[in-house]
């Protein structure tokens, strides 16, 4: 089946307009950006401090070396940055749209509503965090392995993308439940709190939590799997599982949105 090019181009052009206007707005709040930057640096320093507290006791978290653990922290930092850049600014507004009835206007636009709701705006303050996460991953992996062959690099890039898709689907499905419950913002806070578990390799947890973070809340696929890929320790089966999970999550998020919209009755009716 040939991919229709014109609609894709149209969506890309729209995206450029969306983000251009968002950037112009955000540039008005430079002090906020500075505070975000400082908070990011502080958070990373705190995470390093905590890892060092384990390290100085001679604890190798889950049997991972210091540098290998830093690769996981890098993956977490990247995804945390992605959350502040795209997920939170966009998906946290779904609640407001439902509450104030402005979701009607979104649904009437000649554009896919999930696309609009997920990518309408961008918060550039999270971009440095994403960059720093990638740099930390590469730097720590280089120190661990001595060199970075292209094959693990490519695998890590693909699996990090898969992780981003899984993370997006989790957030989107949770945010979409606001069609029924209206106030689900706190539920995403619970998700955020639980996902901080991804700062450390999943094997560092006791068996019960490891199972929970692999099967119920896929924390393992978010940070540990991309890190394993970069360190060249990944089994093909895990990689395949992660890719299938990402595809499945995306399909489920679309199906769930279509399902949720059937129950949408607008704010005033």
């Amino acid at each position, binding site marked *: 089946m040939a991919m229709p090019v014109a609609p894709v181009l149209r969506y890309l052009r729209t995206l450029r307009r969306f983000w251009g206007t968002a950037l112009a707005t955000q540039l008005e709040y430079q*002090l*906020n950006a500075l*505070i*975000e930057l*400082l*908070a990011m640096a*502080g*958070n990373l320093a*705190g995470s390093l*401090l*905590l890892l060092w*507290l*384990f390290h*100085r*006791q*001679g*604890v*190798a*978290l*889950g*049997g991972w070396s210091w540098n290998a653990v830093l690769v996981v922290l890098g993956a977490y930092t990247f995804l945390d940055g992605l959350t502040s850049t795209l997920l939170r600014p966009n998906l946290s507004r779904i609640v407001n749209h439902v509450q104030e009835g402005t979701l009607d206007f979104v649904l009437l636009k000649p554009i896919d509503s999930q696309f609009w709701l997920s990518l309408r705006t961008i918060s550039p303050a999270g971009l440095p965090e994403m960059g720093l996460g990638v740099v930390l991953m590469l730097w720590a992996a280089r120190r661990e392995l001595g060199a970075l062959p292209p094959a693990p690099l490519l695998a890590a890039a693909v699996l990090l993308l898969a992780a981003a898709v899984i993370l997006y689907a989790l957030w989107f499905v949770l945010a979409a439940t606001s069609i029924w419950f209206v*106030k689900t913002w*706190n*539920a995403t*806070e*619970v998700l*955020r*709190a*639980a996902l*901080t*578990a991804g700062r*450390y390799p999943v094997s*560092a*947890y*006791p068996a*019960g*939590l490891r199972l929970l973070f692999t099967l119920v809340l896929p924390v393992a696929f978010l940070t540990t799997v991309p890190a394993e890929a970069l360190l060249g320790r990944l089994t093909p089966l895990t990689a395949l599982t992660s890719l299938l999970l990402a595809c499945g999550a995306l399909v489920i998020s679309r199906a769930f949105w279509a399902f949720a919209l059937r129950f949408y009755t607008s704010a005033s009716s």
Partner: protein
Amino acid sequence: MSFLPPLRVARTLWTVQFAYMAEYRAEIALWALSGVLPFIMFGLWSAAAADGSAAAHGSVAGGGGPLLGLSAAEFARYFVCAFVARQFSVVWVVWQFEEDALEGRLSPYLLQPLHPLWRYVAAHLAEQATRLPFALVIASGFFLLQPQAFAWPAPGRLLLGVLSVGLAFAIHFLLQSLIATLCFWSERASALERLFYVPYVFLSGLVAPLQAFPPELQRLSLHTPFPYLIGFPAQVLAGMPMGGEAPFSLAGGLAAMVLWLLLLVPALLLLWRAGVRRYSAMGA
């Protein structure tokens, strides 16, 4: 002036705020659940303690003994107490205050013959009362999964623990109110709270008991209010040893908390007075 009016005001404030908070039970339950961080950290520390790799490598602090000199059960008790301490000392005044200031609700509050901060104190206490059953359910659930960690605290420790959680709430409330008062100068004081939150997470004992800190960092952090917000109340509640080699002593910790209160109350009142003088009633 008689003694009764303040009491009546307090009762009315409490009744109103409790009725309000009870309406938001579901949200408060989710907030309670979003405090899972200590349980995640318990997972890491207990797995590290059970792993025994620390002993094999010859640990710095324990000299080959158990990790940090704490057993897995003690780690569990510490982190569940850290969870409880945080549940009842968590403060959100800065967001509420910012919203009230931006939407012009603050102006009528300022006209009333009652310091507006008392209203927020009542709201926090009412929210804590609403949160109590949820926090208890979560803590009991944890003990069901980790029955070997359960132990009744000694009555004296329980009493002192409750007292220190109360003091921790007071200190946290005053600190965040200081940030909130900056709303009189800047529209977005809550952004500053994000900066304050970083040392709160990493130095308070939420992610690691203070025993894990190297001695210099331990000393440094004890000069800040952060360890008294979570770490000290949690260690009192968990019945951990105090004094000697331990990071806190019972009397010293309580004295430090009172000292912080004595420092913060006048600071807040001064900043508040300066702020109100600047206030130009947004939205009016």
